[in-house]
């Protein structure tokens, strides 16, 4: 525990601090690009990319082992991983475009073939008469323990570069994700933008292999964006929040892993990200379970208030205890159940609201059905002013309550 706290505070030595910071930057970039990929509805592609890295990784290791006697050269391994992931991505694109298979089917096929081939190559590596076979295992599940300073620096700088690329490309990414047809009319090359998006995704995946591992890096591009969606309804903010969650997961994951050599980094990062997700699922003010419950309770109170006010306007007696409670809390009725002055005004307003909404429902049934909580929200807030004016004009010449 103390070792973990020391690592969290970046006090566990220069190398560990560098790795932790590198993992945080990587997590940030992965979250940001993952947010765009999620909005483009292509999250599964990151799965194909990560599994597609294995054959290239293994081939690069074999090649370096034969040439230099040691396969653990991070630059060569990254290059190999990037090339084979790009080939995998190309296969997915080609299959999707040239055959009747859908993208998810193509991803499944490519992913398993590449991964299977990679596993075969790993077996070959185990039989090689060379050192450092254990080094390649770190790429499967992620390992920051014993990482070299040069490796950590490479990861940090490369992750920073992808972050910069995402910042520069954020506008085309947003437009293409929202509406590719409209984006095309604004002079954006949709195919090129998609290619850039996949390129950044590929880069982040390859950079993150050593830290998070190829089986689990995909979680870093999917979980933080999904978590971020709970907290905002705006595109740029969602990308920033996804980056923040990814960075936090990367930071905590790397710190824990560095403090205890038994824990693979990737697993800790994923569990941390999942914990953020679970918390957001419950607590989010926009779409969380708690806020959903609060909304339902508020809605119920609104229904009772409206029913109570309409009953007041008709001079009917109110028996429902919740209705009475709601009306009394709002000051519409006194303790003995008699309507207050405000209560009578509110009742008249409620009658008018009902009449306007009723007219709207009759005139535009499809539109009305599409609106949330139609009829209970104040009409002036739910509909554009000209529509409300039109309804009022139709209602008033005939006198309130006519028809």
């Amino acid at each position: 525990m103390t070792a973990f706290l020391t690592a969290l505070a970046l006090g566990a030595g220069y190398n560990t601090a560098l790795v932790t910071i590198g993992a945080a930057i990587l997590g940030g970039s992965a979250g940001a690009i993952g947010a765009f990929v999620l909005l483009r509805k292509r999250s599964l592609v990151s799965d194909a990319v990560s599994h597609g890295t294995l054959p290239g990784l293994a081939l690069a290791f074999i090649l370096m082992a034969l040439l230099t006697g040691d396969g653990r050269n991070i630059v060569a391994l990254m290059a190999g991983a990037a090339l084979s992931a790009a080939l995998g991505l190309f296969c997915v694109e080609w299959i999707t475009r040239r055959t009747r298979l859908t993208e998810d089917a193509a991803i499944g096929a490519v992913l398993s073939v590449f991964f299977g081939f990679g596993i075969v190559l790993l077996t070959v590596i185990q039989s090689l008469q060379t050192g450092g076979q254990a080094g390649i295992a770190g790429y499967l599940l992620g390992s920051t323990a014993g990482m070299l300073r040069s490796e950590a620096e490479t990861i940090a700088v490369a992750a920073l570069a992808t972050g910069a690329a995402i910042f520069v490309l954020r506008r085309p990414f947003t437009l293409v994700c929202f509406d590719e047809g409209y984006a095309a009319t604004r002079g954006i090359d949709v195919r090129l933008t998609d290619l850039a998006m996949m390129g950044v995704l590929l880069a982040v995946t390859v950079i993150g292999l050593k830290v998070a591992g190829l089986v689990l890096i995909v979680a870093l591009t999917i979980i933080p964006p999904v978590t971020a969606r709970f907290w905002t309804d705006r595109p740029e903010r969602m990308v920033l929040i996804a980056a923040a969650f990814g960075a936090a997961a990367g930071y905590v994951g790397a710190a824990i892993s560095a403090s205890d050599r038994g824990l693979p980094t990737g697993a800790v990062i994923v569990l941390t990200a999942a914990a953020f997700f679970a918390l957001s699922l419950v607590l989010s003010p926009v779409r969380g379970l708690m806020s959903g419950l609060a909304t339902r309770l508020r809605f119920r109170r609104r229904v009772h208030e409206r029913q109570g006010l309409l009953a007041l306007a008709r001079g009917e007696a109110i028996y429902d205890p919740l209705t009475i409670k709601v009306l009394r809390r709002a000051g519409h009725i006194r303790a003995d159940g008699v309507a207050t002055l405000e209560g009578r005004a509110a009742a008249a307003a409620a009658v008018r609201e009902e009449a306007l909404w009723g007219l709207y429902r009759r005139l535009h049934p499809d539109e009305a059905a599409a609106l949330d909580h139609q009829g209970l929200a104040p009409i002036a807030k739910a509909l554009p002013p000209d529509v409300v004016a039109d309804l009022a004009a139709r209602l008033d010449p005939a006198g309130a309550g006519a028809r």
Partner: protein
Amino acid sequence: MSAPTLIADHGRTLGQSHPDSPLAISGLTVSYGEKPVLFSIDFVVPKGAMVAIVGPNGAGKSTLIKAALGIVPRVAGEVTVFGAPYEKARHRIAYVPQRASVDWDFPATVRDVVLMGLYREIGFLRFAGRRHREKALACLERVGMAAFADRQIGQLSGGQQQRVFLARALAQEADLYVMDEPFAGVDAATERAIIAVLKELNGAGKTIVCVHHDLATVPDYFDHVLLVNVRKIADGPVAATFTSHNLQATYGGRLAAAHVEEVAVGREAAGEGR
């Protein structure tokens, strides 16, 4: 001087012969697989016109504007915008897509969508400033949606979503507005609000092209019409072109004769012509 390719030459001629036309289309052909969806469409939009593109379902109306604007690839054909190649003048066009073309659960507020119309003005790297946000709000004001600026777009009704798309187009300050079914599935009040904005734009000298499905309102809303069903059937001023004869030719048996008689203009003229 080396000889340019035939097609490039064709495009230059098209631009030279229609330097003022906001949108000139020549020989436009689009196919899905080997089935032509549109075949050899020639169409010149007059400057300052309110144009309706009319035809039955599956006639290629939406495809026509999508191909003209480079959204779907074309097999053949040239397009010029104010006499210039499309690529050079696309910023003078504002496109309003069909409402169903986007996922309304996208994390964006009404204001975010309108700001998309200002991306060119804001610049590639910079952030939207106060001036841009105010301009977006002013565009929303024109379509009666200013009070909805901070609402998530999925919470809007169909008519409200269409208004937001129109506001985004207004933000682009274009000279030509190309709209795909702007009145489909919107309430009557929204239809009135949209047509009022379009007439106002038209009064200011802007050109409007709409894919339109409601034959009854064509003579009221538009002054120019293109009748299309894979091939061009007819085009010209509504008064001369929107005849029962042409409508029968466009819709074939798909439209009851009584309905054609009801919506068509210049019944007598068409009758005499037969």
